[in-house]
């Protein structure tokens, strides 16, 4: 370490370039560590398991404008027709589409209103007894809906009285884990929890309670409805092309629209997150590149400025490896000072991001990874100029000034 002292002294005596580089390294570390942390956070968010095979699911809207159409009856016909299309695994008319980014949620409580009791919010999907199979979500405990459980209504004039729910939701209402078979209330309407289903996401990925999902066996007859179809793997494209023709053949006074894969809906829902991730990646890349160029540039400048000095050092006995070592140590010193400042700056930046943008606290590992990365990048950036310095002949020391 005693070698660092004269290098530090030399840097201190002509400090402008080194100080600029120290600031650049500190800022780079602060931004890169925070950006890497946000990217990691977004990648985890984007790669989370939805519990659904989005690539096999698609949805569409069906709006019936014919005045003489029996909506409820036509709905039954439609479901039968759709389930008969080759390649369709199952289909349901549904109130909202999972992973679509829009939908409804509600609070169920342990006691009917107006009594005060524990409550928890959940996204709720309403469809007939084919819902679980259409979603292709496993029943972990209890039983699935039966045809007798399904309530057909014009609105909320009557409601179902059973439901299925994810375990995370049931456990939120019943922390002791004994929710199966219990009754919960939506207003004063009772719903008995008859089954626990495997984890699945509701309509929103970025919801704090995205895992809280309830399935209700109820179908409301209305001119406008959404339909969710699951196809056999790899057959979604061909089924998507047929649905409009099949449905219009049965009843022409209606419009089929927005035939869209659920994976595409998911992509639309997460487009901002992917954009942010990509922009931060570009930012990190550019910053690292600029810093690497800064380090390389300063080293090259120093090689040029110190040509005679390097020749003199060689004349006094420095081996080529000593010259490389000198530049690496000099860079290490600059990097270390920049890194120390950068760690403080990274934590301060994280604090600001936490307070103003509700981001989680920066994980210290990201600072560690970033500083290691920046240090290694600095070593690589300085290596080429250092190698060039070794090509300076010691005989330059005797050339005239």
């Amino acid at each position, binding site marked *: 370490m*005693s*070698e660092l002292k*004269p290098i530090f*002294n*030399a*840097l201190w*005596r*002509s400090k402008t370039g080194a100080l600029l580089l120290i600031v650049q390294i500190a800022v780079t570390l602060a931004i890169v560590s925070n950006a890497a942390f946000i990217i990691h956070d977004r990648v985890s968010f984007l790669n989370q398991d939805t519990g659904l095979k989005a690539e096999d699911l698609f949805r569409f809207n069906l709006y019936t404008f014919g005045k003489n159409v029996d909506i409820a009856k036509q709905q039954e016909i439609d479901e039968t027709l759709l389930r008969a299309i080759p390649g369709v695994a199952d289909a349901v008319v549904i109130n909202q589409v999972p992973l679509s980014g829009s939908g409804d949620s509600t609070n169920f409580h342990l006691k009917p209103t107006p009594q005060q009791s524990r409550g928890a919010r959940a996204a709720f999907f309403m469809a007939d007894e084919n819902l679980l199979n259409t979603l292709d979500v496993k029943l972990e405990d209890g039983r699935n809906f039966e045809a007798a459980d399904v309530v057909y209504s014009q609105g909320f004039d009557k409601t179902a009285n059973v439901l299925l729910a994810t375990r995370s939701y049931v456990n939120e209402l019943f922390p002791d884990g004994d929710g199966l078979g219990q009754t919960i209330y939506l207003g004063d309407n009772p719903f008995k929890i008859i089954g626990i289903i495997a984890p699945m996401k509701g309509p929103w990925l970025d919801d704090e309670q995205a895992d809280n999902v309830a399935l209700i066996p109820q179908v409301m007859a209305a001119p406008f409805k959404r339909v969710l179809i699951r196809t056999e793997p790899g057959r979604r494209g061909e089924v998507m092309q047929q649905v409009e023709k099949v449905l219009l053949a049965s009843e022409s006074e209606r419009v089929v629209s927005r035939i869209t894969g659920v994976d595409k809906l998911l992509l639309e829902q997460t487009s901002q997150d992917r954009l942010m991730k990509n922009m931060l990646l570009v930012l990190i890349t550019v910053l690292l590149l600029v810093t690497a160029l800064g380090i390389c540039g300063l080293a090259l400048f120093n090689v040029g400025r110190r040509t*005679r*000095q390097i020749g*003199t*050092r*060689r*004349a*006094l*006995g*420095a*081996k*080529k*490896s*000593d010259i490389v070592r000198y530049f690496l140590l000099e860079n290490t010193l600059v990097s270390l000072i920049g890194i120390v400042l950068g760690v403080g700056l990274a934590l301060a930046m994280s604090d600001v991001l936490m307070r103003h943008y509700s981001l989680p606290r920066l994980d210290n590992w990201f600072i560690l990874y970033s500083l290691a990365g920046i240090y290694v990048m600095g070593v690589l950036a300085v290596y080429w100029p250092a190698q060039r310095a070794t090509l300076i*002949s*010691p*005989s330059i*020391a*005797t*050339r*005239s*000034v």
Partner: protein
Amino acid sequence: MLSMTNISKVYRSEMVQTNALRDFNFQVNEGEFIAVTGPSGSGKTTFLNIAGMLETYTGGTYQLDGIDVGRLSDNGRAELRNQKIGFIFQGFNLIPDLNLYENVEVPLRYRGIKAAERKRRIERCLEQVGLGARAKHVPAQLSGGQQQRVAIARALAGEPRFLLADEPTGNLDSLMARQVMELLENINKDGATIIMVTHDPELARRAQRNIQVVDGQICDFKLYQGGLEKQRAGAEV
């Protein structure tokens, strides 16, 4: 202790081939103080560079303390240079960002000498050149003569067997030049072998032997205690 036999040095560019040294034969004995003179472009500096292993030669044999320099690698030459040779340059070649102590320390660090021993040598050598009190100063705070004395201290700190001096008074006024010359004479009296390239015939006369280089060959004048003897060009000395 230094022996050059038929040393030649050729510089080649696309258009031109320059024979900087031709059939250069030269021996140096322990404790000698030799002045190398000659007109500009005669090959003095090339000779000094080869003697100091600062550059390689094209042909011939060069032995330093019995070691065949031609067989050494770049690292081997650097090591031998560091251990056996002290350099004094016309432009002093002090490192401007380092203080005097750190400047003198440079060759000692490359030799791997421990800190305590380095300190002892640096302090002794700076005292020897009369700059012990200014160890923390940087070169820019010194006069030219003082800078050259620091360079001499740096050359001495490694306790070399040879001192190679390239126009050591070339950038100094006459008073400073005299002081530096007296310092070199004292160092020589203490046992160091000195080879000094100079343009100044007055200084050359103060050496024990004067080698004149013309067109890359030796045209030798010997100066022994006032006696003058001329030898033919290219003769072995």
